[in-house]
């Protein structure tokens, strides 16, 4: 390394007014009028650089500076014709201190190159101001004189300057020295621990002593430059490396050598610590070291110390924990399972995996990624026609300590092993399958994990979340029924299941995948669902909520739905669930007709797989009904219109289920007429493949009977 590089600031003298470079001219002009600048001289060199030398006076330097900086210093500002980087600034004093914070390492000791700004010149350029530039140089001297240039709240400076960042892709096992090193771009590479036969390099790790940070970046260019770094009490990094090479590795390793160095820096007050891992690349083969040992000690050292080196900063592949920290996630899961990896499912998985929300994520789906899925799926085009779950697993494969299991199959027909893999120790099952059957199967599973289901409406501007409470008092199937009830009774949801002309769907479900959805909407709503699921899981409460995205105005509205309590009756093999909202309405109707019987129709849903009937809506007696103290004949005026309305609102999910009537001031025991009505209507319902429910409200409560 040369001592003082005069060339860098030398040139032919020129009058400042005659400078050609715009940048140099501006600096010259600012310098000659600056109140604390004198003896401004200009030069140009053969490369076309302009050099402006000047004395900076009245620098704010205390009588007892930490570093030997004076209140008058001579500098040179070097402007290059390309003007793509900040003009270089050199402190010219021959004894100006070296290795000051924020001085640039150069292949020569002096003049000292000042790093006056750590902001990219491209960002400064549009508003560059020569006067401010000179002041920033003054600031460099003043703050460095009291060792305050590197602000207390800033991290320590990186120990070695580097031209390349290398990512370690996997964990090292058992001190394996074999790596596959791959250059990815001019400035980036990857390193993977592999078996010997696949290796490209041999890795040696050398530890170093804890180093007090100077906030000066070193740029080693030869093995000899590493001698300044202490490896142990007695040996430099270079010596330690040599010892490893000659004693344990030499002759054994035939691959090119790379060295990993772990540097721990601490601030002088021990309050700040930084740990950095560097990769020193050499063109040295361990066997060469072995061969060269026949040289004299001096000749060998000369050869070894002059071996050129390049430094790369090693960075570890992101890990699940790293992702949680980077995203500020605190509510972590051990294991969750996801059923359905379509539009919404893949988006939520993407959030959860990138945020490290769960150590283990199980995925179940039998779908493949079809070309049209690409318009709103997180997977990339190269995964088309592959299994969605396998490809999603591959996508996040590199995240260290993030376990993702792909179960390729239909959730409804999973074998025992896969079911066990899915459910064992799972804390939460998230259903994005858009299948009512999946949701019902989940609802009826007796295991203790929390479960939720979420889906988009046909227009893709609403997302619905149903999540059970911690104790499972409000099961998924009951939440679904409440969802329908809310669609019927709450005006806010009148557009929720509105279909568009472009819909391509069937009539079995409101959640068909083959609808036109806008991907922007999906990403907004999926982010909300992703967070809300974690929120409700943590709170332990049940949730039935819709979030509506008003894309035009960029507003998301939270629309909570009412969750009702459910009355359960088991009649033979039939499970009847009656929403207390219906019961209350029947009570009210009965109370308004204290002397005469009244009644109405019952609506809801049924599930033949689980022999369940859900009654959650009631229509009171139509106007043409006939009431008497001992009988009630339900009319039909307006019923068809109402049935059409609720069918539309719920997209065919609500059925007529039966009849109710009151026994004012009498027990709810069915009369002979009542029994006859039951038989007749049951027969009628049966012919249409529907169940039938009859309810009688008397002075002893509600009587329920049903047939499926």
């Amino acid at each position, binding site marked *: 390394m040369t001592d003082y590089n005069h060339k860098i600031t030398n040139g032919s003298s020129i009058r400042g007014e005659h400078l050609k470079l715009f940048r140099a001219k501006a600096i010259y002009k600012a310098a000659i009028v600056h109140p604390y600048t004198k003896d401004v001289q200009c030069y140009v060199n053969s490369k076309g650089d302009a050099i402006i030398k000047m004395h900076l006076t009245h620098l704010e330097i205390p*009588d007892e500076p930490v570093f030997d900086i004076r209140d008058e210093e001579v500098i040179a500002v070097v402007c290059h014709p390309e003007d793509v980087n900040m003009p270089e600034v050199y402190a010219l004093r021959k004894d100006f201190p070296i290795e000051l914070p924020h001085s640039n390492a150069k292949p020569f000791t002096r003049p000292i190159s000042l790093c006056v700004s750590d902001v990219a010149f491209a960002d400064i350029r549009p508003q560059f*101001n020569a006067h401010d530039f000179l002041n920033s140089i*003054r600031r460099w001297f003043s703050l460095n004189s009291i060792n305050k240039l590197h602000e207390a709240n800033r991290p320590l400076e990186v120990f070695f300057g580097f031209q390349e960042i290398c990512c370690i892709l996997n964990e090292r096992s058992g001190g394996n020295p074999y790596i596959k090193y791959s250059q990815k771009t001019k400035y980036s590479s990857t390193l993977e621990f592999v078996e010997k036969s696949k290796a490209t390099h041999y890795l040696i790790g050398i530890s170093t002593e804890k180093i007090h940070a100077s906030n000066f970046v070193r740029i080693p260019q030869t093995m000899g430059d590493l001698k300044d770094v202490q490896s142990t009490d007695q040996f430099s990094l270079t010596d330690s490396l040599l010892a490893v090479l000659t004693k344990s590795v030499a002759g054994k390793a035939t691959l090119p050598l790379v060295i990993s160095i772990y540097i721990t820096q601490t601030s002088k007050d021990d309050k700040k610590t930084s740990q950095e891992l560097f990769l020193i690349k050499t063109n040295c083969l361990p066997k060469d070291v072995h061969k060269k040992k026949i040289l004299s000690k001096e000749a060998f050292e000369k050869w070894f110390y002059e071996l050129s080196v390049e430094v790369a900063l090693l960075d570890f592949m992101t890990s699940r924990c790293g992702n949680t920290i980077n995203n500020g996630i605190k509510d972590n899961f051990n294991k969750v399972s996801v059923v359905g990896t379509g539009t919404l499912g893949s988006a939520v998985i993407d959030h959860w995996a990138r945020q490290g929300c769960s150590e283990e994520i199980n995925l179940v789906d039998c779908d493949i990624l079809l070309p049209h899925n690409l318009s709103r799926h997180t997977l990339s085009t190269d995964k088309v026609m592959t299994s969605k779950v396998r490809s999603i697993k591959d996508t996040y494969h590199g995240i260290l300590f993030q376990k993702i299991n792909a179960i390729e199959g239909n959730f409804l027909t999973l074998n025992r092993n896969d079911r066990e893999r899915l459910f064992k120790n799972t804390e939460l099952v998230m259903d994005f399958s858009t299948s009512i059957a999946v949701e019902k199967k989940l609802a009826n599973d007796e295991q203790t994990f929390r479960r939720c289901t979420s889906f988009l409406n046909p227009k893709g501007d609403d997302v619905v979340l149903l999540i059970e409470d911690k104790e499972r008092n409000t099961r998924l199937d009951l939440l679904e029924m409440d969802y329908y009830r809310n669609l019927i009774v709450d005006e806010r949801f009148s557009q929720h299941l509105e279909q568009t002309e472009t819909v391509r769907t069937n009539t079995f479900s409101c959640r068909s995948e083959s609808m036109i959805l806008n991907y922007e909407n999906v990403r907004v709503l999926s982010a909300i669902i992703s967070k809300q699921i974690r929120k409700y899981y943590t709170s332990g409460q049940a949730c039935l909520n819709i979030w509506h995205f008003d894309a035009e105005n960029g507003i998301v509205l939270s629309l909570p739905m009412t969750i009702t309590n459910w009355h359960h009756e088991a009649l033979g093999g039939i499970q009847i669930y009656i929403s207390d909202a219906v019961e209350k309405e029947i009570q009210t109707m009965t109370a308004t007709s204290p002397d005469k019987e009244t009644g109405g129709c019952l609506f809801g849903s049924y599930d033949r797989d689980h022999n369940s009937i859900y009654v959650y809506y009631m229509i009171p007696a139509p106007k043409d009904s006939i009431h008497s103290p001992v009988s009630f004949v339900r009319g039909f005026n307006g019923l068809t219109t109402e049935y059409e309305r609720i069918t539309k609102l719920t997209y065919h999910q609500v059925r007529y289920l039966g009849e109710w009537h009151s026994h004012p001031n009498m027990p709810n025991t069915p009369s002979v007429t009542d029994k006859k009505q039951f038989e007749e209507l049951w027969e009628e319902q049966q012919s249409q493949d529907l169940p039938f429910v009859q309810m009688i409200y008397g002075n002893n409560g509600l009587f329920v009977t049903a047939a499926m």
Partner: protein
Amino acid sequence: MFDVKADLLKELKKDGLGRPFVDLFISTHPHDDHCKGFAGNFYQGKVDDYDKDKNKDEIIIEELWITPRGLNNNLSSPAEDIRKEAKRRRKLYDDDKNFFGSKGNYLRIIGYDKNKEFDRRYCYVPGILVTTVHGSSLSWLEIFIHAPFKEDVETSKKYDDKNATSVVVQFGFKIDGYTGYKSRVLMGGDAEHEIWQHILDNNADEEKLKWNIFLAPHHCSWSFFNDSDNKKEIKPSADAILDKQIDNYAHIIASSNEIKNDDNNPPCYEAKQQYIKKLKLGSSHFLNTATHSKVGNIPQPIVFKINENGKTLKENATVAGATSISNPAPRAGR
């Protein structure tokens, strides 16, 4: 023109009632150029009578130092204002033997006065190290009093040489956690070379004359070096005092008009040249209040910050465009 009041108000603290105050005001000697503007800018009278509207921005003096000559008759009107305030305070002490000072009423007479009995409650003499001001101990400052001496006070009376009674002090600035002074300032008002010689003759502790900052006496007058008409010979006292500068970074401040190469005195061009010659870092450490730093045409205060690294001369931050906005714009229009 300086705008000292504005500069002062910018720096001064305010008390609980929002009134600006100084801990200590030293009236070095009763010359007009050291007393002008006292009335109107500094509050005179009982602090309880301070009227927020009437006395707006008048600075309360917690403790006032004055020389015996400043308390005598035959003073100009501005000096009389200070005398009046000092006499008001002295009366408080004289009327009550148990009075030791109170807010806005502390007084110290610096130097012996033959006409008055020495009263320890409010008199200081050369050789005293002051560590408390207005009843409070100063953790960051000590003041050593060098002058005026008894005989100089007498001379002053005899020949009406008010400069001879100048208060000469060394300020020693301390920083918590460090022993000794971090910076020392030697100030002598308008004291001329005879006074400095007396100080050298009487001084017992070399340290008390050392300085990091020296205020060029009598506005950079030649009288510090010799009698005004003799520019060739420099009295030994000047050399001795200037040799007391500490290390390499000491500053000399000339509180004066711009020092031009002419026959004016003060400020005296030859005096400036002598100071520069004596300073280890030469001209860069000789500062003139009139020219050191200006915003527009208004000279700015010279500010030193003293911390654990010693003193630092603060530069007036310059920003691009400041020149344009600190001067009237050139005439525009048809």
